[in-house]
């Protein structure tokens, strides 16, 4: 009985520590996306390189593809860019860029400097499409299946680990 007197506070302390430790390992910036399993919102906006041409997700129906939100002002986009370039070289999936709140000239120059892994980039100058996709910090990457359903969203730069462990297996499964 006496031991209980000491064990109860100790138990409460342990539970508290476990909760706090769990809190420390979580990244508060990674908010679960409400889009997973839902149709990619429709939009129709001009392309980055060809002002007269428009892009709409409809055009990608029947393909597994990636929508990557990027901008020339986005520092962490530079981090993931080599991975996107590499994915493009290996021809894993078509990657469509969503150039988010950027000046056309800055964006095209940036792609010349860092390489252009995108099949095309859509130009979301006022960030309206970004809002419809719940974008809150570039880079963000959406993986969309043949039916136009968003299957996965990656927030922040795509890391080699995320590519190998999550994206590639999922792409394989969706293509299979």
């Amino acid at each position, binding site marked *: 009985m006496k031991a209980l007197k000491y064990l109860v506070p100790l138990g409460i302390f342990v539970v508290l520590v476990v909760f706090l430790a769990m809190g420390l390992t979580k990244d*508060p*910036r990674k*908010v*679960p*996306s*409400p889009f997973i399993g839902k149709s990619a919102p429709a939009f129709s906006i001009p392309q980055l390189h060809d002002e007269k041409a428009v892009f709409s997700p409809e055009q990608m129906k029947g393909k597994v593809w990636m929508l990557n939100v990027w901008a020339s002002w986005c520092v962490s986009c530079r981090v993931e860019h080599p991975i996107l370039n590499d994915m493009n070289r290996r021809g894993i999936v078509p990657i469509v860029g969503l150039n988010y*709140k950027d000046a056309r000239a800055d964006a095209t120059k940036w792609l010349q400097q860092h390489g252009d892994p995108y099949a095309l980039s859509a130009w979301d100058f*006022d*960030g309206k499409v970004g*809002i*419809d*996709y*719940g974008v*809150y*910090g570039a880079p963000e990457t959406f993986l969309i299946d043949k039916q136009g359903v968003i299957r996965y969203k990656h927030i922040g730069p795509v890391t080699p680990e995320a590519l190998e462990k999550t994206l590639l297996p999922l792409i394989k499964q969706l293509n299979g």
Partner: protein
Amino acid sequence: MKRLLALALAAALSAPVLAKIEDKSVAADPAVERRLKEISDELRCLVCQNQTISDSDAPLAVDLRTQIRKMIDAGKSDEEIRAYMVDRYGDFVLYRPPFNAVTALLWVGPGVLVVGGLAGLVIMLRRRKVQPEVTASAPDAGKLKEIASLLESEGDAPTPRR
């Protein structure tokens, strides 16, 4: 009086500094602005997560305020505007998230802790009450004799160290 004047002057001068840098597109109708404030006070800015959309000057917050303004102008209800935000950013965007399986612990947890703590306290206090009180009783005759003999022999006994 002088101090008061100085204080008033300081307050007047600091007002423009304290005033929030608002985006240029403020709605002409103050009623719309008031509603915007009410709605955006309850929405979290996902870029700087501990600020509301009404407080934040992050570009996304400015965009979302513009969006809310547009929706108010289009005659959308507060509920529709909130649903619009939740559709895009999830329940996390609400400062008062709805009660569901994921948020149950969040809502119920503090109550459970308070009730549990109070219950524990009550049990502890009750237990303390039933404990017999330790009181000193007057020594009986036999005991007195023993004490007396002890006192007498004090001279021979080793003195306790202090």
